[in-house]
């Protein structure tokens, strides 16, 4: 574990601005995504751009990268105004971007991905060898090891991110935009990324670091700019500001950073997993013998880097994926490979899925229809032969009021709601019926702070009612805030289960990276 001291020793960015954003406004139909934004990035500095989901950070960066055209305003690079009509123009101006969702072709090799769009060609054919050599050179210079010939989809996300950074460096980027680069990494990987960022800064590169995580901003940034609802609301100096100040600036009101909750009073075991095994969609092993108990009245948080089997774990518990080994007991009844409907009904289980658009809702359906998605066949919604539209609408009105889902009407299509309200709609449907076990996967992904607070308080309220909660999240902060016990998943196994009181970020970070705690003690 390297010392994580603020890097004040480095020279902060000074001199003329490398990149200037002047009065940028971006309108989408019905939405002002960016309003009159000014921003300057100096050579050799790390500028953090802070804002909650939907604040307009990504829109602004996409404008700088030439993916969007601003409605108004100007961008200057090295003092001269530029017009960018496509990423090509941005690349030619020395701007590189590492997107939040990696822009890598999964089935292609590292070489092919890095040279795509800037290919090296020899007598009409691709010159993979020379590109490979250049990659080797870059990866040594910036201390980012990667095998140019491996296929992207075989690489861990941390390495994929390195490929993205190398891709920008291969194009001689002087300005690097990193969009939420830490959301997929373990704490130790995050530290490694920060070291790379500092190395890049020392070599004169200028970096815009986009995030909504306050700790990280204070750790690595030279300067902080805060964006709220499309507007620049202030700048801060990491040396003098605090997490509380930044949070207030970001959300526009004081927020409680710590979740207030009573200690858990755990009861009987409601969910019991024994040596559960399962495969991914491609037939690779995903769960390699998972054992875990969740008791009534406690929240068990599953921490881990995305892709270590969490998705499959949730799907096996809820019946959406067959278990190839082991057993799943719900309230003492063997539910291994039972149908989703039987698990929902007999197991009295509810499931807030990881990706609401993929599983949780039907975009084209009205709010009312979405709210009966798991009960449409029951009385009073269905008489067996016909559906009762009146009962469905009435049920929807009740839930919408109770869970504060903001929608013009229950007939509005689910797709037209905001992300936070869609998630509240899913939560309303799942929480609004009698349950004993709650499975929540990424329950607050990509939604605003207000909705996050609401959903977190609902989850804790369920726990206090004596319901067993299995919480899966890739946000370590969320796990730390809500869980009574924390299970860490790595490579298809639960590597440890710790009581909240014994779980430190460092310990969990090591477990997420596959280092067992005993190894660490020995070293």
């Amino acid at each position, binding site marked *: 574990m390297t010392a994580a001291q603020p890097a004040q020793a480095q020279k902060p960015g000074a001199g003329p601005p490398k990149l200037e954003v002047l009065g940028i406004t971006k309108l989408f139909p019905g939405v002002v995504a960016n309003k009159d934004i000014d921003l300057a990035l100096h050579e050799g500095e790390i500028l953090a751009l802070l804002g909650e989901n939907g604040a307009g950070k990504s829109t602004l960066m996409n404008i700088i990268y030439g993916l969007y055209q601003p409605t108004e305003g100007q961008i200057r690079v090295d003092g001269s105004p530029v017009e960018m009509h496509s*990423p090509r123009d941005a690349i030619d101006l020395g701007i590189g971007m590492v997107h939040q969702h990696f822009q890598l*072709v*999964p089935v292609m090799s590292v070489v*092919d991905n890095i040279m*795509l769009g800037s290919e090296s060609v020899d007598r009409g054919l691709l010159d993979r060898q020379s590109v490979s050599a250049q990659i080797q050179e870059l990866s040594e210079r910036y201390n980012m090891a990667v095998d140019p010939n491996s296929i992207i989809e*075989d690489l861990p996300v941390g390495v994929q991110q390195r490929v993205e950074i190398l891709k920008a460096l291969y194009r001689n980027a002087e300005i690097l935009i990193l969009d939420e680069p830490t959301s997929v990494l373990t704490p130790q990987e995050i530290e490694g990324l920060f070291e790379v960022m500092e190395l890049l800064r020392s070599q004169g590169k200028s970096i815009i670091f986009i995030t909504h995580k306050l700790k990280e901003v204070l750790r690595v940034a030279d300067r902080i700019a805060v964006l709220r609802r499309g507007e620049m609301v202030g700048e801060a100096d990491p040396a003098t500001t605090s997490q509380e100040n930044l949070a207030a600036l970001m959300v526009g009101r004081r927020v409680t950073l710590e979740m207030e909750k009573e200690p858990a009073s755990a009861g009987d075991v409601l969910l019991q997993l024994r040596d559960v095994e399962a495969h991914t969609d*491609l037939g690779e092993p995903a769960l390699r013998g998972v054992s875990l108990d969740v008791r009534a009245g406690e929240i068990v948080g599953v921490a881990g880097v995305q892709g270590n089997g969490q998705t499959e774990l949730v799907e096996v518990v809820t019946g959406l994926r067959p278990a190839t080994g082991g057993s799943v007991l719900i309230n003492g009844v063997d539910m291994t490979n039972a149908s989703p409907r039987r698990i929902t009904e007999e197991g009295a289980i509810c499931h807030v899925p990881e990706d609401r658009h993929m599983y949780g809702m039907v975009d084209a359906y009205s709010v009312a229809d979405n709210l009966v998605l798991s009960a449409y066949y029951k009385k009073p919604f269905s008489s067996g032969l016909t559906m009762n539209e009146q009962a469905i609408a009435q049920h929807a009105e009740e839930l919408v009021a109770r869970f504060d889902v903001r929608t013009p009407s229950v007939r509005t299509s689910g797709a037209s709601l905001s992300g936070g309200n869609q998630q509240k709609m899913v939560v309303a449907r799942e929480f609004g019926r009698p349950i004993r076990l709650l499975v929540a996967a990424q329950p607050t992904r990509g939604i605003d702070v207000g909705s996050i607070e609401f959903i977190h308080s609902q989850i804790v309220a369920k726990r206090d009612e004596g319901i067993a909660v299995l919480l899966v999240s890739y946000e370590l902060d969320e796990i730390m805030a809500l869980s009574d016990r924390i299970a860490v998943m790595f490579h298809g196994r639960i590597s440890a289960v710790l009581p909240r009181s014994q779980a430190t970020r460092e310990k969990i970070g090591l477990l997420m990276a596959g280092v067992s705690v005993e190894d660490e003690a020995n070293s």
Partner: protein
Amino acid sequence: MSKNAPVSAFHRLRRRYGNTMIVALALIVMAILVNVTPLKEQTWLRVLFGVSALNFTLRWTVPLVLGALSGILCERSGIINIGIEGMMLAGAFAGFVAKTSTNHWPLAASLIFSVVAAVAVGGLMGAVHALFSIRFRMDQIISGTVIIILALGTTSYLYNRDAIAEGKFSSIPIPGLAQIPVIGPVLFDNPPITYLALIMVAVVHLGLFYTRWGLRTRAVGEHPRAADTVGINVNRYRYINTSLGGMLAGLAGAFLVLEAVGQFQEGMTAGRGFISLAAMIFGNWNPIGALGAATLFGYTQALQNELLLAGVTQVPRQFISMLPYVVTIVAVSGLVGRVRPPAAEGKVYETEGSA
């Protein structure tokens, strides 16, 4: 997940080209065995694997492999093309019209002109499909269906039943190679479009995997946004590839009219475009795999001919004629195993900035 365990050559072949390789290899081995050993005295073996069966196979394979290549070009760039049947038919008709209106020209000139016409009209159909799919955001399967119905209707409407095409391509034996027993008469004594089709397999393969155009095409079909963010014009690649695909389908049509049959018949493609699609899937969107698959399907067609010629009457001829279609169904359902279509196939790509 990365496995550096040694993968046997056989597995590598299978992974890349699909199961078609196994089937095609088995067929070749059997054919050589039968034709160079006394086994050829056996009637049923001769029917199954004789030189004549192999010649028929190649003749049926050519339009199928061209159709499959057409599909590969479109789909590797992300445009589903079930309209191959229509593009082929339109190409065939254009080739026929060009031939009948240049009957008075020297034969070779007239034929080459007709091939060019067929390829051009096929390309035009491809461009229309791309226009529907990209500019007008039509569902690509429906757009393909429109292409088919349009081709069927237009060719029937315009077809002049009194027109006759005079002359067609004849075989050009390749000196030396054509004298090799079995392989010579099958592979090296063919009319020009057959050679061209086999060359196209290699060209498309090389192009897709070893050139800038191919790299970009595949990126556009797998992950268009990744391509867009490095400055590649996604839709331009889709337009180009779909038009090129249409041209290959048109060439298949030219083969039918100018090399195989010599005349045009209404609906003469008779499902070849669809079987091409199956060959493309069966061959895992890979040109060499598609050649293997097309050979397999071509072989079932040839077998049908051979059985009918051999006067097999125990089985009703309709059932023999079902063979290619049934084999296609079996292939796409049973034997295919795990194929992986280009990930972004069938989806409209919109640059976000255009909003």
